[in-house]
């Protein structure tokens, strides 16, 4: 499974949304319905899945699905 697919799978599971809605430009909060605690959980899951650490500062930049995918690819 590609990084992109893995991230989409995590988002789909955590936010309980249909994977087809998880397009690169979708905003995690505005389009996919995440609240602040969902974002914290998303970050925690991605940290574990990809064995990386995402700082609180960086978390603020993870606005869209593409942001999240790019971040993971850039920090592996």
């Amino acid at each position, binding site marked *: 499974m590609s990084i992109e697919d893995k991230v989409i799978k995590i988002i789909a599971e955590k936010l309980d949304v249909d994977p087809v809605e998880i397009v690169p430009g979708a905003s995690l909060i505005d389009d996919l319905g995440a609240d602040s*605690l969902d974002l914290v959980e998303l970050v925690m899951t991605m940290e574990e899945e990809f064995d990386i650490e995402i700082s609180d500062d960086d978390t603020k930049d993870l606005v869209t699905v593409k942001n999240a995918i790019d971040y993971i690819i850039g920090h592996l």
Partner: protein
Amino acid sequence: MPDQIKRTVVVTGGSRGIGRAICLVFANPDTRIFFNYSRSEEDARQTEEVVSQAGGYASGLQIDVSSLTDVARFFKTILDETGRVDILVNNAGIARDALIVRMSEADWDAVLNTNLKGTFNCTKLAAKAMLKQRYGRIINITSVVGVSGNPGQANYVASKAGIIGLTKSVARELATRNITVNAVAPGYIETEMTNKLSDKAKSEMVGLVPAGRAGKPSEVADVVEFLASEKASYITGQVIHVSGGMYI
């Protein structure tokens, strides 16, 4: 240790007094209890012993709750062993009483660091595990004086009032994830902490209690047990006083 551990309980300050009584109510073959202690290893071993005699399994580790590094190590040990934290009881507390004009900065810092920051540190680490589990019970031991105020205890009272604020905020944060956060406010309970009071102070304290007697650590522990149980699944963000009516 039994094979079938279903529940992991963490109690801070579990070596003596109310903390030991709390460990004891969770003594059960399917429950793994971890507690920390700050100084007395002998007391910690005694808590392990009484829990074991009651059919449970508890381990005491020397951990400074005011240090986030220490607390992170504590939780890593726990998670490495059982992979869960179902119940956290933030009980560790110290007192360094003095009137405000006589209270040293060191006394203020020591009490706030152990009581309030210690509760923050443990709650932060436990919440992470509980979020993943989609289940958790956090019970913070505050004090009746955290609500009423008490002369000579500005540091202690501030820390206990702070714990109430922390309880209410975290309860709101975690409620959707099946994690409840409550506080228990003991009044005058017979422990080593209150044994240090003079006889005159003790009788004055009892005079403030409508029930006319000091409470027992087990009477506090029973309420903690209830809040940790399924029977309390719809209670969160509350402060339950266990004080013989000392504050009504």
